[in-house]
């Protein structure tokens, strides 16, 4: 029962996502989010963090994967305080 319910949720999510993409709403939301992040300084903070990481690792040897692995969680945790209620 629970599985089916989860399946339903997943289905629902998938459906919604699909809808969003179809109407182009997702792109719009993405741009909106990006603008908001820059405005509140999230990007600058993340950049500073990047610099540190790069300095640690050395300029030459930085790879995308490293960066992603380091930065994404940081970004996410920085971002969580911002309530995404407006997106709803």
């Amino acid at each position: 029962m629970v599985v089916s319910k989860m399946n339903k949720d997943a289905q629902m999510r998938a459906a919604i996502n699909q809808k969003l993409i179809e109407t182009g709403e997702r792109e719009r939301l993405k741009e909106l989010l990006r603008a908001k992040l820059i405005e509140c300084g999230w990007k600058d903070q993340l950049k500073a963090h990047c610099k540190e990481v790069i300095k640690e690792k050395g300029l030459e040897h930085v790879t995308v994967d490293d960066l992603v692995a380091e930065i994404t969680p940081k970004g996410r945790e920085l971002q969580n305080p911002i309530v995404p209620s407006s997106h709803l």
Partner: protein
Amino acid sequence: MKMEEMSLSGLDNSKLEAIAQEIYADLVEDSCLGFCFEVHRAVKCGYFFLDDTDPDSMKDFEIVDQPGLDIFGQVFNQWKSKECVCPNCSRSIAASRFAPHLEKCLGMGRNSSRIANRRIANSNNMNKSESDQEDNDDINDNDWSYGSEKKGLWYLPFQNPNSPRRSKSLKHKNGFSVCTSASNTLPLLFSSSGELSNSDPFKYNNSTGISYETLGPEELRSLLTTQCGVISEHTKKMCTRSLRCPQHTDEQRRAVRIYFLGPSAVLPEVESSLDNDSFDMTDSQALISRLQWDGSSDLSPSDSGSSKTSENQGWGLGTNSSESRKTKKKKSHLSLVGTASGLGSNKKKKPKPPAPPTPSIYDDIN
């Protein structure tokens, strides 16, 4: 769609929020990824650290917060006391005076060329001039008399700075070339007031008139045909204004002309109208008695000074005929009787064309 119906039916708020949160998380992750790609590219291309400056140069541009300095660390008024060395004359000049000094020193500004021109003219004057001392009041007056030009110049260095005016006045508009003395050009150079219409090559005063003592009879005659010519008592000079100048009466002008040119002298403006002559013939005798009386009481309130009475007392008879002509010209549309009495109003310097043809006007004058 079936799925849609399913999702709509199964919705409640918490679920909605959960879903929204998930969508949001996805978006954030996408942004992070995008950002990573940008950074990585910057690092690899080498421009990632470009906008950073090293700490040394950062210290150079720190904001200064000390009293007496601005935020760049500069002192206020620093340039006031500094002295610059002029490349031309090798003098040290204060910074705030440096630009005007340079303008004069190099001779390239507007003012400096004017001053230079005036100096040249001055030196020409001094070389050519005969010394001719005027009264002391003239020297002290604001205008320049012939002999006291030197003093006038130094007292009033900027009275006539315009060189275009000077060259204008050098053209003899009236065609006079009577004066032969070399000193003719001198006054012209310095007359830039409104008297330029009288561009006579005579000794010229800035605003009052001409000194008649040194003029010959021909010159005088030609002068008198164009200018008022009345001699002012204070300065002993002829008025250079027009023949209708309001400061002097026609009778004064007549008197001056008679004085200089003999009793047959005629006022220049008379010659234009022929009618006047006929009128004159018939009425001159009738007017003589009146005019004689008029001549003695020539004072009108608007005229200034006692000079008029002294000059006109003796000329009562002599002025009769011309005066009638003059008034006739002014009020030519009036009847003869009207003109006769119009003489009285003429004296008051307010030409009232419809003058009442009664002798009561003479009472007014009295």
